[in-house]
């Protein structure tokens, strides 16, 4: 009895607050309201999302998110390796210092860059100290990219670090004993074995980057910059919930598809490696 009853409240909760809301925006995205208040089914909301203005927004979000993910990977992988190889006495502290900024409120971390890049910010202060002309750093695509890399870098480093730490060190020694030079050992052993960490890092950076509206609002301004801004504006400013729902559904689909692709990549990759090893 208890076994059956125990999950009752939970099942009610996930049905009511997870499944129903998503079905609702799915419904909203597929209808329009007639003048007499009745609903008609239509695809016009989705068609509108493929208007060149909105396609540009979608592509821009994808581009910035991919750039941020790649930069995080390139900056983060060496850092994860350094952390994994560090003297155990300092390692715990170093990893902790890496986690601390992540625990600070994400809005404060973004706000910090406003004070640095702003018109009367630190960077311009330094420039004028050296007698150089003032520049505008804030409200540019570069500022948004910087904000993303800053906010999400630890999400890339930590999963890779964890995988590197768990890696069987004897495999690396074996590869070295068999005559692999540093480069071969890295590309043939370390990198493939760390693939699960890379993939989880990539999805942990890409997902929030592609759907953010906070970073772009604070560091770029209020225009329709990214998909996140578009959804936020449709729901809170323009009040076109039907179009907003359609864009939200597209974003959701995009994320789910990329997660599925990533899972496939990770899954088959690891299995193949297993086969090759033996």
């Amino acid at each position, binding site marked *: 009895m208890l076994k059956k009853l125990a999950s009752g409240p939970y099942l009610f909760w996930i049905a009511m607050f997870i499944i129903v809301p998503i079905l609702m925006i799915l419904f909203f995205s597929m209808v329009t309201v007639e003048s007499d208040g009745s609903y008609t089914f239509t695809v016009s909301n989705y068609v509108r999302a493929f208007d060149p203005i909105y396609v540009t927004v979608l592509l821009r979000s994808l581009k910035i998110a991919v750039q941020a993910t790649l930069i995080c990977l390139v900056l983060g992988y060496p850092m994860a390796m350094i952390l994994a190889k560090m003297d155990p006495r300092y390692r715990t502290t170093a990893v902790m210092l890496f986690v*601390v900024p992540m*625990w600070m*409120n994400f809005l404060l971390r973004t706000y910090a860059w406003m004070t640095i890049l702003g018109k009367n910010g630190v960077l311009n202060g330094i420039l004028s100290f050296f007698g150089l002309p003032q520049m505008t750093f804030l409200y540019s695509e570069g500022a948004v990219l910087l904000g993303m890399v800053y906010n999400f870098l630890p999400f890339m480093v930590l999963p890779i670090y964890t995988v590197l730490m768990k890696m069987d060190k004897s495999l690396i020694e074996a590869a070295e004993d068999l005559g692999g030079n540093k480069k071969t050992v890295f590309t043939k052993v370390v990198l493939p074995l760390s693939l699960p960490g890379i993939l989880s890092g990539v999805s942990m950076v890409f997902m929030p980057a592609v759907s953010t509206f906070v970073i772009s609002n604070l560091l770029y301004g209020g225009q329709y910059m990214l998909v996140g801004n578009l959804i936020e504006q449709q729901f809170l400013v323009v009040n076109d919930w039907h179009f907003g729902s359609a864009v939200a559904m597209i974003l959701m689909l995009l994320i789910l598809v990329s997660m599925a692709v990533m899972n496939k990549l990770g899954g088959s990759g690891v299995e193949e490696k297993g086969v090759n090893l033996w």
Partner: protein
Amino acid sequence: MVNKFIRRFYTFLIFGFLYAPIAVLAVFSFNDSKSTAKWEGFTLDWYQSLFSNNYIMKSLYYTVLVALIASVVATIIGTFAAFGLFYMKSWKQKAILNVNSIPILNPDIVTGVSLMTLFVALNVNLGLLTMIIAHVTFCIPYVVLSVLPKLKQMPGEMLEAALDLGATPWYAFKKVIFPEIKPGIITGALIAFTLSIDDFVISFFTTGNGVSNLSIAIYSMARRGIKPEINALSTLMFLTVLVLMLILNKRTKIEEI
């Protein structure tokens, strides 16, 4: 030894990148001017105006209140859910766990607008209650996922043994199952609490009526430009996190995070 030097230098650069913005905020929180370009002298005025700022103080109160209620409710529902799921048929469990992972995988903004759509359609006024419901919703999946593995690690048929020995189901749960899964419950509760404290996007869409948490307060102030009070707030928050982590580090000597 060039290698070692490059490694040190790189570590230094990355940590510099991570900490420079926080350091800038901290330094300018003591600046006797609204500007963050020039140092005008030392002051504690911004800290004073932070503590006398009603909006921020009220938001802090709501942040803690919501986090406490949401994490307790989510932990209770999630723990019993994991217990129920554990004894379910495997296909059923799989299907439910898929639904469970929706709030984790979905972008926050989609979760936020979908919950907002539900509340508005049900004619519930957006405010404290809707924000708490939303927080419970995104916290439960993490509690389930941290309790379930502990149940699976449990020696098999523990519950049956207790029942055979004459325990009532509730007594068996309390005395046999609960002690086994306690670490998972504590982890789940902590994750729920920190997620709730840190949330912005979902709260932003599901609150109203002048109820706002700290993240929303920072957002609406930051949108209007640089506010030295926020610098002071950041410094205090950073110190809080740092001290908490140091205590945690001392107490458990975490090997891996």
